[in-house]
C-alpha cells in the first residue's frame, strides 16, 4: 500500500486547520479505532488490513505530529495541485534537514553586558575577599553598575528579596535553601565564584539567625 497516495489529514480524519493538540488527539483516536480488537472493524477490515491502516496512521502522524514536517507537507500538498511533487516521508524529512542546515539566525541574540569601569583596587579586593556579607555583595553589585531592578529581571528573584539579602534582613527572607539558591544566582550574575560566595554568605546568615 503506497501511503503517499493518501492525504495524511484524511487518514487521521483531522481538519487541515486543526492545531497540533487536535492532531495528536485525532491520532490517538485513530489508533484505538484501528486496533484489531475493535468490534467496529468486524466484517470490514481483517487483521492484516487493520495493521496496514495502523501503519498508515503512524506514518501520517510522524509527519503531521511534527510542526516543521507538517508545514513542509502542507506546502507540498498545495504545490501538488499544479505539479508533480514527491510527498513521501523521506522527501519531507530530507527537506527538513536541508532547511535546518540553511538556517542561520538573522540576528545574534544580544546579551546586554553591564557597563562599568574596571577598578583594579576593587577587582583585587573581590579576589581576596573571604567574608561575603550582604553588605559586600551590595558594593560589588553597585561597582558592576547593576541596579536592584536589573538584577531582579536577570535572576527572576523579587527585588525585595535582593534587598533583604543585601541587608541580611532574616525576617523578610524565605527558608534557608531558597536563600542559598538566590545568593548563587546573584553571584553568578555578578561573575563571581558562586560556591565560595554562597558558602561564606550562608555562614554569616546562620550567625544572624542565632
Amino acid at each position, binding site marked *: 500500500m503506497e501511503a503517499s*497516495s493518501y492525504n495524511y489529514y484524511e487518514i487521521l*480524519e483531522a481538519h487541515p486547520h486543526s492545531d497540533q493538540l487536535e492532531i495528536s488527539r485525532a491520532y490517538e*483516536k*485513530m489508533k484505538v479505532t484501528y486496533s484489531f480488537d475493535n468490534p467496529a472493524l468486524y*466484517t*470490514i477490515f481483517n487483521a492484516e488490513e487493520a495493521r496496514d491502516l495502523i501503519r498508515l496512521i503512524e506514518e501520517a502522524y510522524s509527519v503531521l505530529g511534527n510542526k516543521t514536517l507538517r508545514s513542509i507537507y502542507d506546502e507540498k500538498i498545495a504545490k501538488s495541485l499544479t505539479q508533480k511533487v514527491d510527498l513521501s516521508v523521506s522527501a519531507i524529512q530530507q527537506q527538513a534537514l536541508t532547511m535546518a542546515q540553511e538556517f542561520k539566525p538573522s540576528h545574534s541574540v544580544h546579551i546586554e553586558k553591564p557597563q562599568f569601569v574596571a577598578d583594579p583596587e576593587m577587582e583585587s579586593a573581590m579576589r581576596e575577599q573571604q567574608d561575603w556579607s550582604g553588605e559586600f555583595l551590595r558594593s560589588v553589585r553597585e561597582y558592576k553598575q547593576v541596579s536592584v531592578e536589573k538584577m531582579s529581571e536577570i535572576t527572576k528573584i523579587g527585588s525585595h528579596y535582593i534587598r533583604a539579602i543585601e541587608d541580611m534582613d532574616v525576617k523578610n527572607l524565605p527558608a534557608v535553601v531558597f536563600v542559598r539558591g538566590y545568593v548563587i544566582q546573584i553571584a553568578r550574575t555578578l561573575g563571581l565564584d558562586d560556591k565560595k560566595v554562597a558558602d561564606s554568605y550562608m555562614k554569616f546568615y546562620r550567625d544572624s539567625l542565632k
Partner: protein
Amino acid sequence: MNSQIWSVCSGKGGVGKSFVTANLGLVMSKLGYSVLIIDADTSGANIHTCLGLTPPAKNWSHYLSGREPLVNLIQSTSVPHLSYIAGGNYFGETSVTAENVISDLRQLPFDYIIIDTSVSQSTMQLELIRRGNEVLLVTAPEPSAIEKSYRWIEQYVACELASDSTLEARLKIDRALEDFRNQPRGQLFNFRRYVKSEHGITPDHFEKLLRKPVRLVVNGIRTPNDNNLGFSMKSVCQKFYDFLIDPVSNIEFDNAAWQSQRNKEVFLMTKPFSPIAGELMNLAKKLTARNFSETNMKAVV
C-alpha cells in the same frame, strides 16, 4: 401540513429499535410537537407493547392491503400530542408504493411521523426510508449487530445510489458492492473511487448521502469502550466506503428499561429522570434543531 418523516431502522432484531422509536416519540411529544408513531414492522409488530397499550383491531396491514385509509387507523394514547398506528402481520402483496405512502403521510396533521421499520428489507421499505427526512439506524455494541448494521448501510446506500431505482441499476450497484468486498485490497479501500473506476458510476450520489447521512444510534452501552463504537463505525465507513454516517447518540444500558418492558410500561413515564431519558431528549433536540444536517456535517478536507 408537511410532516417530517423519520425512519428508525436496524440491521438486526432485538437491539432496541421499537424501544427507541416509542420513547423518542414520547420525548418529542413532551417537547411540544405533535407526533405520530407508525409500527411498520409487518413481521413482528410491538410498538403497542413499548407504549403499554393493547393492540387495536385496525392496523398498518389494513392500510397496506388497501382496506382502510390511513386516517382511520390513528390511535390516540394517554400522552398528549402522541398518536400511533399499530402494526400487524402482513405477508401479502401490496399495491401501495412508497410514493403513495409518503404522499399519504404528508397529508396527516402531525409535525413528526416516526416509522418503526421492519428488519427484513423490502424494496418498498427501502424506498420509503430513502424518501423520508431522517434515517436513524439503531445498533448494539456486539459483533452480530455491528455486522448486520454494515450490511444494512450497504443496502441503504445501494438503494440511495440507484436513486432512479430501476431494477437494473439496483443490481449493478449490488454487484459493485459484492465485487468491492471480495476484491483483494492492494491499494485502494475506497468504494467511491472503486465504483467510479470499475463501474463507471458517477459519485454525485455520495454528495446526497453527505446531506442526509444515516444517523447511528448505539443502544445498550455497557462499557466505556462501547462509547467509541459510533465514532469507530463512522471512521470505518469513511475509510472503506467513503461516505459519512453520523454517530448521533449513545444510549446506555439500563436494567430498568428491560424491567419496564416486562411490566408493559413506557420506560420514560416510569423513569423520566434516567440517563436514557436525558440522552433521548438530547437526540430529539439535535434532530429537531433547524438546519441540523447543514451545521452538523462538516466535510473533512
